[in-house]
Each structure stands twice: as C-alpha cells, then as structure tokens.
C-alpha cells in the first residue's frame, strides 16, 4: 500500500479530480496549503503596490492506494495538474504501513477501497 501526496495549483484541482476519477480513484483528502518552490511568485496588486510573496497558495491532495493503482494514480495527477510552467507542483510517494476503515474495522487492501 502506498500513500501519495501531491501539491498542485489551486485552479487545477478540478482537472486532477477528473483524471483520478477516470482511473477509478474516488477516495482522497484535499487541503488548502501555502508553499514555495522554484516559482518566483505570482504578484498580487493591492492598491497599486505590488507584493511578491514567497509563499503561494497551493492545494494538497492525499490518496491512499493499493500497489496496482500507484502508477495510474501518479499518471492521472500529472495529467490533470501539468501546465508546463514552473509551479506545476510535486508528487511524493510514501510507504503505507496500515489502513483501517473506521465503520467496519476492515484493514489492509479492503480498507483502501
């Protein structure tokens, strides 16, 4: 089992969700985050003063998947999130030790769903 964390542009979230659904991945957790990477910064203009902020709004998607779903999940996220510009984001793949469904008590492969 793997736990996949992706940080993507906020306005790409709908495309990413669509691509994941295409690959039969329905379960995910999404959070609003601030982050910085290589992107120098989108400027926001407040009353005519340009502010270049190091921390940019991004969205974090977290998905727990069984081994056979890892590659297609990564491909789906890439397809949905990519714009070809610096700031597209990153995907991290972690080993998942255990997964439990709270309602039924199922563990492992069945719990991931």
């Amino acid at each position: 089992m793997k736990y996949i964390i992706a940080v993507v542009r906020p306005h790409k979230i709908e495309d990413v969700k669509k691509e994941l659904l295409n690959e039969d991945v329905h379960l995910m957790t999404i959070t609003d985050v601030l982050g910085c990477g290589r992107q120098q910064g989108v400027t926001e203009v407040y009353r005519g003063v340009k502010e270049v902020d190091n921390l940019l709004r991004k969205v974090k998607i977290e998905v727990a998947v069984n081994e056979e779903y890892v590659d297609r999940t990564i491909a789906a996220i890439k397809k949905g999130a990519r714009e070809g510009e610096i700031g597209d984001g990153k995907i991290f793949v972690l080993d998942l030790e255990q997964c439990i469904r709270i309602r039924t008590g199922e563990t492992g492969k069945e719990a991931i769903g």
Partner: protein
Amino acid sequence: MEKIVSADVAWVLIATALVMMMTPALAFFYGGLVRKKNVLSIMMQCFVTICVVGLLWVLYGYSMAFGPDKGGVIGGLEWSFLRHVGITPNSFYGPTIPHMLFMAFQMMFAIITPALMIGAFAERIKFSGFLFFVIMWATFIYNPVAHWVWGNGGWLAKDGALDFAGGTVIHINAGISALVLAILLGKREGGVFPKAPHNLPFAVFGAGFLWFGWFGFNAGSALAANGTAVIAFTTTAVATAAAGTMWMILDWTFNKAPTMLGVATGIVAGLVAITPAAGFVSPMSSIAIGAGASIVGFIFVTKVKPLFGYDDSLDVFGVHGMCGVWGAIATGIFASKGINPAGSGLIDGNAIQVWIQIKAVLTTVVFASIGTAVLYYISNLIFGMRVTKREENIGLDLSQHHEAGYTLME
C-alpha cells in the same frame, strides 16, 4: 409657476440617498452568493456601474430618458450636461421639488438597473467587455425604456401603463436582458449547479439593506412627502413581509427546511413585485402581491431554471424578471382609484388595465432581449465577453483585477 415645498425636497433627498445605497447593498447580496475567488469582481462591477453610469447620466443619459420628447420614443439632447436642469421645478417631473433633485433621484435608478444584471453573468464575464456593454446598455436600452414609461410624452405612459417605481423599466428590463446574457455567455465551468455561496451572511446583509433602501425607491417615487408616499411605504413593508413568509413556507414544504437564503430571496422577490404597484394598491392587496411573488419566484428558481438549464447564476431572471412581470400584471389587477386616482385596475372593474400592463411588459421584453443580444455581439466582437477557462478557474478577482478578497493564510 410651481412652488418648492421643503418637506417634499427633504424627503426626496433622503429617498435619493436610500436608493443610492441599494447598489452597494446589491454588491453584498450578490457578492456573498458567489464563490470566494469572485467576490471582488461582483463588487467592482457594481461600484464601477455607480461611477460610470452616474457620470453618463449627467452628461447625456438624463436628457435621453426624460428630456424633450421626440416622437414618444426618446428624449432629445437639449438637457445634456444638465442644461435647463436647475433648481426650478419641472411641472411634470416633481412639481414641488427642484428639477435637479428629480434628475439625481432618477440617476440612482439608472445606476441600479444595469447593476442588477451582474448576477446573471457572474463568475465568467470579462471586465473590459462588461464595461463596454454596460455603457451601451445604459445608453440604448435603459434610457429609451425609461422614456417610454416615465418620460413626458413617452408612448407607454400615454397608453396608460401603470408603473409606480419601475417594475418594467428596471426589473423586467434588467431581468430579461440578464437571461439573454446568461444564455449567450454559456454556463460556468464545472457542470455542477448551483455553486455554494461563500458568505451567506454577506448576502443576508445585502438583502436587508436592499429592503431598507427600497423604501426610498418606492415611497420616494411619490416625489412628495404626502399620502401617496405613505401608501407606497406601507405596501413596500407589507408585500415584502408576505413574500418572505411565503418563501419560508415553500422552502419548508418542498425543501424540508426553511432556509435563510430562501427568506432573503423571497424578500427580494416581494420588493420587486410591489415596485410597480406600490402607490396604486391597498396594503391588503399588497399581501397577495408579495405572496404571489414568492410563488412565481420559487417556481422559476427551483423548477424552470433546472428544466431549461440556463446558468442565470444568481437568478436575476427568475426573481427580478419574472417577479417583475407578476408585479406589473398584479398592478393591473389591484390598482384602485380609492387608493390613488391615477390608477384603476381589475379590482375597480377596469379589466382593460391588465391588458395595458401586459402590453407594456411584452414591449419591454421584446425590445430588451433583442437589444441586449445585439449589444452582446458587438461587445463580444470588440472586447470579448467571456474569460478563458484558466482565468475562470483561477477566479475573476485575481485574473481580472489582480486582487484577492481575503488573505486567509499568511
């Protein structure tokens, strides 16, 4: 020679300020109903309308709408730059108040009418196209219709159409134009409607202050501090109360729970419907008018819109357009000589008034829809009316205005 009456001047001055306040209130009503990323775009469109249309009004708009009549169709430009619009009253336009006050009062109506349409194309309109379109619409749609219904010599007025404070000129005009724009612009991205409001308290705040300002809108249209103003004030209070209550009942019955948004929408529906009728009907009749408005509005918002699938984002057509139509026809039904000698409807036995009202409604609908479509195509050709998919996903605030409404994480 007309004499200025101080009490009338004082009241109409206050009413003018109340109506002006309605456009910022609208900014909150609509602003709260859109998603977070588009809140500033709504407010920007509202406030820019106040500034630009207000300016154009004194340059030529007032003259086009209320100036010396040309063939019953439009006013001439003799009053442009407010020439001949001074302190001396105009005997037709508020015989006891300065002419300039009448002009200022009407300015606030000319401003809020195009602002109403903002709800229909919310969250996807391009600002440059919007600005050009609003200028054109105010000039070529609002001014003529205002002249027909309220101008000295306007052909719908001569016909006997009753519109106390602007059911036709404002709500039906804007409502049908909004529908045309919603259809021509196309639906918002994402395919899931409605989109959740980001700040319902804002929307409620806006609705509340729209009601407050509407007392100026309706009672101020009496252009005097007199009995008619009092009647218009009362019917505005009663019809709206009935409408809010009725929408709560409908929500509770058909949607399992009474909602704040429902009551707020019902309130606006009632206010729209009583607008043409305010100074012509009895307070008891206004209960029927208000309750009827919520029924009409509820049907159009919950049944007709999903059925036809047009994305009138904030129900401008359903609430302003259709409740305006109901209000105009209800005026023909409930207007009574006993309330106001200037208006007599079905309730008095004067059935023909209903037909006169319908005629005015149909004329406005045809003119406004064709005119809006033409202006849309011109604006779209020159500026483009819709943002790109990427801009729409990012949100209009950042893409059109490089601004964010909220700094939620620092």
